């Protein structure tokens, strides 16, 4: 296989990886401020997609679809935190994590009932055309996926690095207890971070929908791959988690293209397994082990 095949595998892998990266970032941000792995994270990608596609099918202008779907993700993220996690903040972690799994199941069920089982589609933001790079054919919508991911990541990293709430998030990731003692309102911060994570996931779902369609059961796959990215980032480093997500998308594509499509998932999960074994600390999320209180 020649260079054009390499590019043909690389670029679509990068596109899928962008979604995994945003999901991984959501996992890391939520885990840092709440100490909880939010397994509903992938469902926000699904929701963003189905809400936007459904609105578009009902003649809502595209820009409004994008904004409303992203806002819906942010709102649901905030509601998830307020209604299902805040009331059980002092409960053991495994209970809180199990609740996030329950939220994921509920979101899938609601999406199935509200939007139906058939995949929903929407056109590319600037048409459904393709462009060629070094002999590889790529949908134009991929540019929107790459661009919006880059923009969103830039805004989030700027927020984390240069704003007071961002510094508070980083402080929480270093020592949650100390951050609280220093006056950080972790309740409000957690609410805001869940909203941002929900919105980012939903936006990822919106921009990827013209390429992969939106389906009520699509969130599981995004959630699992994003979860691997977050593990690679040790549930602490947003940057490594993002790179992990991007890497998984590309690895998946290369594995299917150069080895066999049948081994695609086995290789991705094999890499995760190898990483965890080499690292020697299974399920260490930042400074905290997943322990039963």
């Amino acid at each position, binding site marked *: 296989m020649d260079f054009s095949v390499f590019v043909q595998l690389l670029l*679509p892998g990068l596109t899928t990886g962008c979604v995994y990266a945003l999901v991984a970032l959501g996992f890391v941000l939520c885990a840092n401020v709440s100490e909880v792995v939010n397994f509903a994270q992938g469902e926000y990608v699904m929701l963003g997609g189905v809400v936007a596609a459904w609105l578009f099918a009902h003649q809502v202008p595209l820009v409004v679809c994008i904004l409303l779907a992203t806002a819906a993700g942010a709102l649901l993220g905030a509601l998830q935190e307020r209604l299902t996690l805040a009331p059980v903040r002092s409960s053991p972690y495994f209970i809180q994590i199990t609740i996030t799994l329950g939220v994921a199941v509920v979101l899938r069920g609601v999406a199935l009932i509200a939007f139906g089982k058939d995949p929903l589609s929407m056109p590319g933001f600037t048409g459904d055309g393709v462009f060629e790079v070094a002999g590889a054919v790529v*949908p134009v919508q991929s540019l929107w996926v790459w661009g919006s991911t880059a923009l969103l990541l830039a805004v989030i990293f700027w927020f984390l690095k240069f704003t007071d709430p961002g510094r508070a998030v980083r402080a929480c990731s270093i020592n949650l207890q100390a951050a609280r003692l220093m006056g950080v309102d972790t309740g409000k911060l957690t609410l805001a971070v869940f909203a941002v994570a929900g919105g980012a996931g939903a936006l990822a779902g919106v921009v990827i929908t013209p390429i992969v369609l939106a389906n009520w059961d699509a969130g599981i796959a995004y959630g699992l791959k994003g979860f691997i990215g977050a593990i690679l980032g040790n549930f602490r480093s947003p940057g490594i988690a993002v790179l992990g997500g991007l890497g998984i998308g590309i690895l998946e594509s290369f594995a299917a293209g150069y080895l066999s499509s049948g081994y695609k998932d086995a290789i991705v999960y094999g890499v995760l397994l190898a990483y965890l074994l080499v690292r020697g600390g299974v399920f260490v999320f930042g400074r905290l082990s997943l322990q039963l209180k």
Partner: protein
Amino acid sequence: MKRLIVWLSAAIVAIAFTGASAQQEFKIGVVASLSGGFAAAAKDTMDGYKAWEKARGLPGRKIVMEVLDDETNPVSASNAFRRVASDPGVQLIYLFIPSNSVMAVKSLASEFKVPIVAGGAADAIGVPPDPWLFKVAPAVRDFMTVLSQYSQKKGYQRIATINSTDAFGQAEITNLRALAPKHGLQIVASETFGVEDTSFNAQLTRIRAAKPDIIYNGASGRAAILTFRAFKQMGFKEPLVVTQAAVSKAFYDAIGSVDAADGLMTPIQLGSLGPAAGGDMAKLYGELEKALGRPPVYFNTFGYDVGLITEAAVKNSNGSRQGIRDALEALKDLPGVNGPVTYSKEDHTGQNFRSIGMGKLQKGRHVPAD
């Protein structure tokens, strides 16, 4: 005395009416996927069956149905089957559920000794046969036979495939591997995907590199839409054949229009070709279309064939469970909308490759491929 005569007369009339209604009733238990992923197909099947009831039915008998939903779940299907099969009044059972659920029920079929007419395309539903379970639609091997025959007829020698990793997809490629050498075909690429996959780029890149003469895509649902779009985007020019389950309203909606699928080929049951199928099939198709009041979709034709099989089995039996079973097994070349139905002691598949033709989409309708 007068009062006694009145009472006796009333009793005789009551008994006569009870007897008449018992004689006229024919009770069918139905396990159908009224919800879940197979719901649309099950509804179309029921519509086709109801069209048969309207057009023909069972003369002199009133059909009573007990319908249970399996929620497109094999465990629920088994439980629902147990419930309807336990009803001593049920004389025949229909399974309007997907292959994996039918396979779950097959393991219980002989336990209750009720004749069953089932949907599903998996080969193992009909062969080896369960004495009480009768499949209708052709098996996967029959569809792959038609694909191989068509490729040979057109002089194609290199075929590439992309199949799902589930049992259906693997049955397709297993059958094709067995058939290909007999038809002078070489499988130059055999790719797989998970039904929840959203990117097929890598698989299609490998297929393109293999330089096939013809491509078979076994995807259905969302995967069918995404692979079709990826084939178009990557500029494939080779003839593309898809499974008949790929083409649906959702498929047309997602690819933009019915015209966008023009030229796409699929091995399809002859009923879907409508009048172009000719002979008994065209006549029965006309009956179905008239009863439905619109052109039928594939699962309507399947439902109508279930009705025709029921009609023949009841007509050739005493109406008992054993009698209906024996009559089903004795059916030979019964005309159906999709083609002739034949059962034997060794094979309960029903229709075979004779009921399939290579179709081509043209403005949303199937026409015979060149």
